[in-house]
């Protein structure tokens, strides 16, 4: 898995930038961007798998952490536009000028610094997850209830971000970005670099997650997933473990969101839609949960399938996707990863 990512990390930029466009091996910038996006989804799926696969927290609100991270990056990029906006106001983003605002709301302060913005992109989702987890896990809200109130959370956030008064661009969100750290977002080189960054980030986070789930901490978390009451009786502070995993997962999701925005060039409240969060769950389920690499695989495969199908036959896409969910839950309860490992053991026996 790491090998594949590392390889793609080299192949994509090289074939995009160095191989001439006429060559059959040329990889278009469009594909680089597309797969860069998928890598972010992979990262997001990884985050959810950590919470759901290993700790049993089925979050229907991970889209919210992702979107918050995205808004963190979006705000930085928005500030980078400076006076190149339509209204040419050096201090205010276009939508604020449009709403006749005279000064920047306080919470936009500091977002012109990349470091601060990135910190916030991870910190805000983390904080939200901490507050939420601290409340919910202490009152032993579990299972379906937890899923539903997380869904309520992302729904409430979506409604809030749709409001112009929130100061995040309302309906239209943040867009029209020009450059990041002084490099134009439109250039092929920037995109290739972003792609490499996304792959590296995925590799690093994947390794960290692997390390965590293999550690003693990870084993405790898995036992909590399988027998929460028993672990509590043994004397573990179940809620602390759960909150930690949940916060970590939200941090990763926020990071994924921050990486995602430069690829697509827009962030809007639609990202908070409850449907998006369910889609993340689907990726992990199809890829195979509690395997980590399965989640990444699921995210990339399903997203790719979605892109292809909606282009070729939009009518059939929902049928296929729907059918796929039913099929996977019925016949591949452990997802593709589970299917592969079963296949491996079977083949091994035969040989």
């Amino acid at each position: 898995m790491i090998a594949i990512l590392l390889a793609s990390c080299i192949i994509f930029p090289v074939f995009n930038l160095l191989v001439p466009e006429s060559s059959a091996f040329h990889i278009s910038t469009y594909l680089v961007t597309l797969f860069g996006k998928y890598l972010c989804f992979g990262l997001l799926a990884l985050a959810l798998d950590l919470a759901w696969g290993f700790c049993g927290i089925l979050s229907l609100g991970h889209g919210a952490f992702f979107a918050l991270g995205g808004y963190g990056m979006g705000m930085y990029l928005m500030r980078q536009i400076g006076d190149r906006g339509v209204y040419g106001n050096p201090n205010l983003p276009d939508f604020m000028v449009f709403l006749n605002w005279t000064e920047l709301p306080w919470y936009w302060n500091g977002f012109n610094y990349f470091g601060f913005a990135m910190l916030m992109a991870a910190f805000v989702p983390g904080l939200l997850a901490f507050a939420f987890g601290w409340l919910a896990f202490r009152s032993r809200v579990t299972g379906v209830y937890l899923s539903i109130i997380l869904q309520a959370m992302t729904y409430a956030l979506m409604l809030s971000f749709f409001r112009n008064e929130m100061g995040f661009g309302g309906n239209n969100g943040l867009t029209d970005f020009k450059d990041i750290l002084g490099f134009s977002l439109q250039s092929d080189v920037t995109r290739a670099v972003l792609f490499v960054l996304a792959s590296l980030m995925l590799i690093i986070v994947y390794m960290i997650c692997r390390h965590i789930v293999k550690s003693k901490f990870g084993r405790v978390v898995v036992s909590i997933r399988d027998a929460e009451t028993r672990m509590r009786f043994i004397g573990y502070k179940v809620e602390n473990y759960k909150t930690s995993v949940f916060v970590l997962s939200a941090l990763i999701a926020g990071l994924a969101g921050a990486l995602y925005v430069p690829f697509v060039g827009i962030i809007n409240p639609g990202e908070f839609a409850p449907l998006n969060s369910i889609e993340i769950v689907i990726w992990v389920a199809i890829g195979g949960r509690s395997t980590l690499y399965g989640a990444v695989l699921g995210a990339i495969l399903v997203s790719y399938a979605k892109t292809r199908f909606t282009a070729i036959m939009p009518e059939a896409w929902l049928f296929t996707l729907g059918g796929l969910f039913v099929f996977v839950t019925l016949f591949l309860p452990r997802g593709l990863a589970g299917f592969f490992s079963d296949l491996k053991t079977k083949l091994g026996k035969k040989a």
Partner: protein
Amino acid sequence: MLRKILILAATFQLFGLPPEVEAQTQDASQANSALEEIIPILATARRNEVPDLVEIIANSQDSRRRPFLESLLNGQIYFTRDEERVVKVLRVDDQFQINDALSNEELGLVGTRAVRRVSVNNSLRRTIRLLIAGIDLQDDDPQVRLSAVEYMVAQEAAESREQLLQLQSEESDESVIQAIEEGLALTDLSSKDASLRSSALDKLAGNLNSTIRNSIRDMAENDPDPEIQAKAQDVLYSIQSKVELYGYVQTLFFGLSLGSVLLLAAIGLAITFGVMGVINMAHGELIMLGAYTTYVVQQAFPDSIGMSLFIAIPAAFLVSGLFGILIERGIIRFLYGRPLETLLATFGISLILQQLVRSVFSPQNRQVSNPEWMSGQWQINEVLALTYNRLYILIFCFIVFALLSLLLKKTRLGIEVRAVSQNRAMAKAIGVRSGWVDALTFGLGSGIAGIAGVALSQITNVGPNLGQAYIVDSFMVVVFGGVGNLWGTFYGAFILGIGNKILEPWAGAVVAKILILVFIILFIQKQPRGLFPQKGRGMEE
């Protein structure tokens, strides 16, 4: 000159005596002939003579005067260019069908240029309306009299006062008398006599009419007499607190209405999710199927929209119920005990159903019409009106809830359903066919979703996304109320519905919704199993 004389003659003939005396003395034939003499004058009358003529016509006691005035008001009265004969005109394709203005006798077709309209301007129109109202004051139907009085009062015309006073002495119908009194008191409010104003205020205390309220507000600010001004302020205050009270009633009704919609949407889910533990993400789509069934039924019986709803209700129950049983038998029964995985599978089903509807019907919204008896509103008083469709849905929701509770409490199926949901193994051991019960329970929950769809089709757009709009809300209601408890869902729906509508006026619709969601999130922290948690050790998963 000749015209003037004729008009004068006519005026004297009819105006020589006050109208009421005249009505007694004049016999019908004389009046008829009078009308026949006056109307032709319209053809040659000058514009400033027309109002007088119209008044003369209205004051004749001829029964044909009202239809004639109405035709005049509608711009249907013309005169022929050659004979200067006054006629009533109906348009037939490119030609005019002309009728005698009084007898309505057909006179044949003419070209559009052969006739000229008797022009009626706005001030004349008002005069004619007032005159028609004056005629209606003598109508036999109290309803007609009442609306005539209301029209005259609303116009605040000084000339109507006499007519109203006269009618007041003769009137027998309660509501008409009341309307006249209000009208007279309203004109008294602007009288110069302070005692008249004061007594009018007494009469109007607590009245909710907005014209009256405005007049009193005006007095409370500007009345020359300080005593009366203070009195007007008191009366205004009492009226305003009454209006406020009705405002609360209105809000409560909106809240109940929203609650009933939430309850209808959530109650099916309370069964599939609460009783069976299945997270049915396709629930919204089952509601949508119900709404589309209503559409299909209406298409099938385009002539009887009013009755079609009564066919649509069982039809929607069957369609959604059968889909539900299909889903349960085909997919969900393999997933019992893995509630989170039913979420994935049913989400897949919801996508399939959405696309199915898009492919079969169209991605656009379909038009479902309201039957006659469901449109309009019930005007309780000047400031409180309840729309019929929401009222009926509220009642309908209570009926559905009552029937469902009865079904679960009293019937064999209901008892078996509860047995299986409480202890599957034990139920099986004593001979309950649990698989069969599961299928029927799921079918029941889905069928109710279908019925909810029929109700929703009357108040929202019927489109492929209908279900999506309600699924999140439905889950909130069930979780808030407490899983596995129908009454929890009942209270949950109405508390959330009313809460939302109470917040809305000062927070705005979106913020109200956000606050409700935050409230649910916090509430679940405090009470992790909802309003009415199921008790017992067996409930720990």
